């Protein structure tokens, strides 16, 4: 998937993956896609819930040792 920007949040624990994601998202424009890499397992449900509450769209997610997310700015 084509991402506008890739954010490396590997090795960061809660709440940092979301704090960084939010900051990166603030710098993007509507319709841009942010790709996030994280290793904190809590990121999965938190990023999903955060995207929803912020009006963004979670396009895809890949599970594994590194979790990958693609979020489209709303």
């Amino acid at each position, binding site marked *: 998937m084509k991402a506008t920007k890739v954010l490396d949040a590997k090795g960061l624990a*809660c*709440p*940092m993956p979301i704090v960084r994601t*939010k900051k990166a998202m603030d710098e993007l424009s509507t319709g841009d896609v942010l790709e996030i890499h994280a290793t904190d397992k809590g990121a999965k449900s*938190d990023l999903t*819930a955060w995207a929803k*509450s912020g009006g963004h769209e979670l396009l895809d997610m890949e599970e594994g040792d590194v979790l990958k997310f693609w979020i489209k700015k709303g």
Partner: protein
Amino acid sequence: MAKTIAPKQLAQKVINHEETLILDVRNTDEFDNWKIEGGKVEVVNEPYFNLLDGIEPVESKLAKDKEIIVVCAKGGSSEFVADLLEEAGFSNVYSLEGGMKAWSEHLEPVKVGDLADGGALYQFVRLGKGCLSYFIESNGEAAIIDTARMIETYEEFANQKEVQIKHLIDTHLHADHISGGRHLAQKVGGTYYLPPKDATEVTFDYTPLEEGNDIMVGNTAVKVQPIYSPGHTIGSTSFIIDDNYLVTGDILFVKSIGRPDLAGLAEDWVGDLRNTLYNRYKELSDDLIVLPAHYSFAEELGKGGLVSARLGDLYNRNSGLQVEDEAVFRKMVTENLPPQPNAYQEIRETNMGKITPEIEKQKEMETGPNRCAVEG
């Protein structure tokens, strides 16, 4: 930097019924599934990611001078939010150390009573999961029933009391938590007991629990008397301790009864459950004090955190014991059951010795509520 509070201090507040205000900053799905309850706990939920731009979403719900304990999954986000609250002028904010993960592991010992010939009985309350285990000490020796995974807590307690742990007993093969019984028995050179009918697939040696074979603790006659009481599992065994207490395992709780489906055999075992609750236990003295392996509702935590009830009283007020019609009872315990506990199949396999997950994985398997009961 915000101040922190240890799980032990929070546990004291809960069991002493102190007014406690918690701000849980996990996402709402996780909060709805499992949260801190009991005593006079009041909980407000607002996910931390809604507070990144400012604390307005919670500002009106919280008083600036009141004590607020912020809680998250592992302790990182709660510290972050506690700092935000302090910056906004809240003066009495604490972050729970280790979050719900640490809370789930905390065991709080509560004294049940003294035994007739010396010694005492303690209930270890696992507030984060609603699991209860029992520590019986008499004349330098101890037995533990339904030992939790965190065996160090019992070892420390035994050291304080200067007693030697001799007997590790499980009332049944657990599906909601990983038993510490086998490991503690290995560590202290004690005996690990299981009901043989629950142990047909286990991969280790154990001593079978059998009705009629009393277990002695210390030199004094503290009998731990097994009673075969199937229903939650086919092997479920209860114990009469000191002719005064009835440890019921997951068969009978204070406000509910055990569910017969966690080993996958609800239809087959419902008759056993009925027989145990409506016949076998009825033959016992009404004055026995019931001590269950779980509680499900915060209001079951009594004075000082003790969960117990007189058997005769439960026959009057526990809704699971009031169902005269056998068909209605069958329907109640086989249909509309609550969701099964997190990872219950893997937990059973771990307790059988078939798999040995690493410690972090074990912690993860145990998260969430116990869900071993059926409401009448």
